[in-house]
């Protein structure tokens, strides 16, 4: 589903973000990407959505070799991916329903399909009663649920999450993790960058640890730190 072969990436200011990274993630896996700030987690995610280009190595996502993917084909790649970020990225002037339906509208989905799937996914994330609320009327956890709903509404094969619990308190984070787990159980591959030790330790899923852009650990059913 996701495969990186000897991928390296150096930014223009000579900061080395990734160094010879090879990771293979199969369909339906749940993978934590851990490491300190600046270890390359965000670059990892950006490379997968072809927001950045690697200097070296090959990346295959959802059957597409990104190196050969022409720019005008990038939208078709992104329609197979859902993205969740630390800062939610909701549009403040749109309601919960509109924020989610927006993701379908702008890729040209018919209104009938939108009216059917958006309520479904909002039910799934536990916001069935807040269609008409605006983001500023929601708690952080609720906002992140909207963001997850938006990422998942088009039923992507892969869900990429960059610090999705970074702005949330521990209790709320657990709720979001349960949601991501539920989505993972529908067969969706989930990759989550995080430095939330509690979450990683309690979920016991595959852990890929980055340090200064290198993979220093790749462990199934792992925990955040070494040796635990």
């Amino acid at each position: 589903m996701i495969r990186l072969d000897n991928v390296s990436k150096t930014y223009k200011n000579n900061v080395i973000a990734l160094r010879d990274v090879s990771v293979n993630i199969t369909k339906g896996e749940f993978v934590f990407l851990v490491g300190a700030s600046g270890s390359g987690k965000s670059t990892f995610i950006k490379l997968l959505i072809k927001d950045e280009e690697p200097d070296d190595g090959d990346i295959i996502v959802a059957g597409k070799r990104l190196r050969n993917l022409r720019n005008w084909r990038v939208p078709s790649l992104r329609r197979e991916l859902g993205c969740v970020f630390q800062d939610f990225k909701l549009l403040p002037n749109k309601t919960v329903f509109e924020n989610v339906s927006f993701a379908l509208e702008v890729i040209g989905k018919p209104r009938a399909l939108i009216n059917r799937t958006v309520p479904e996914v909002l039910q799934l994330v536990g916001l069935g009663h807040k269609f008409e609320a605006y983001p500023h009327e929601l708690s952080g956890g609720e906002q992140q649920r909207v963001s997850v709903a938006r990422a998942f509404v088009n039923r992507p094969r892969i869900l990429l999450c960059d610090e999705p619990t970074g702005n949330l308190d521990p209790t709320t984070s657990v709720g979001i993790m349960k949601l991501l787990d539920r989505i993972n159980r529908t067969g969706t591959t989930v990759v989550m960058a995080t430095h939330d030790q509690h979450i990683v330790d309690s979920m016991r899923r595959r852990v890929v640890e980055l340090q200064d852009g290198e993979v220093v650990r790749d462990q199934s059913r792992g925990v955040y730190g070494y040796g635990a």
Partner: protein
Amino acid sequence: MAPRWRYLLAEVGMGLRRNLLMTLATVVTVTVSLALLGVGMLIRTQVDLARTILFQEVEVSIFLLDSVTEQQRADFEKELTNNPQVESVIYESKEQAYEHAQQIFADDEAVLDAIEPDDLPASFRVSLVNPENFDVVRSQYVEYPGVDEVVDQRDTLDRFFALMNQVRRGAIVVAIFQLIAAAALIANTIRITAFARRDQTGIMKLVGATNWYIRLPFILEGIAAGVAGALLAGGLLLLGMVTLVSGMREQIQFVPFIGIPQVLAVLPWLVAIGGGIAAIAAFLSLRRFLDV
């Protein structure tokens, strides 16, 4: 695609309202530049029209001396009529010349007072089979008894037309600079709008909206400003036509003037140029600032 159209209209409307002042400046600049361009195009139409018609009417004037005898005049007329180079001959006596002048300057008391019936010479107005042969005809008749002067009226007209062409070129050069300014303003307006909506565009890119889908509202916004400017410029030209040219038409009756149909014929060009330049400016601005 009902939702899509509603989305587009809402986006374009919001973008235009959000920077009302900037939009106003853009539309005004587009209007001025396209109006100038229109003036340039219309002067050309005017010159072409006047040239065709005036050249048909007036080609060569042969002025006679006041001392010309009736016999000389009759011989000369026969000579002209028999010349294969000559297509038609009209004789204008001193009295007719005076009447003609009174018509032309009907509104101009000062000129009327200054002209005495005896001032204007009698003349033959000659049109040639081939107007280019003026020099031949002139050398034939300039020494003829009773002839004062042989004048190629096209010379006079051509000087006038040359002047008009200078005005036209000037108008078009200024119009081009104005259009560049208008394009820069449109690009800047789009940049501001794109910046204001960068969150939304970011999400659109993230969920896989195509680049054209993202660009379209911005480009339509630019085109709206361009077309609005073109229509306003058309309005200005019509206004100018109604006030200025109608006045001239009454003053100068022997010159044919362009009218509203010619202005309407220019309008599609203005709309196409205004819309086209706006679309290109918007497109380049998006490439530069939105990376789509």
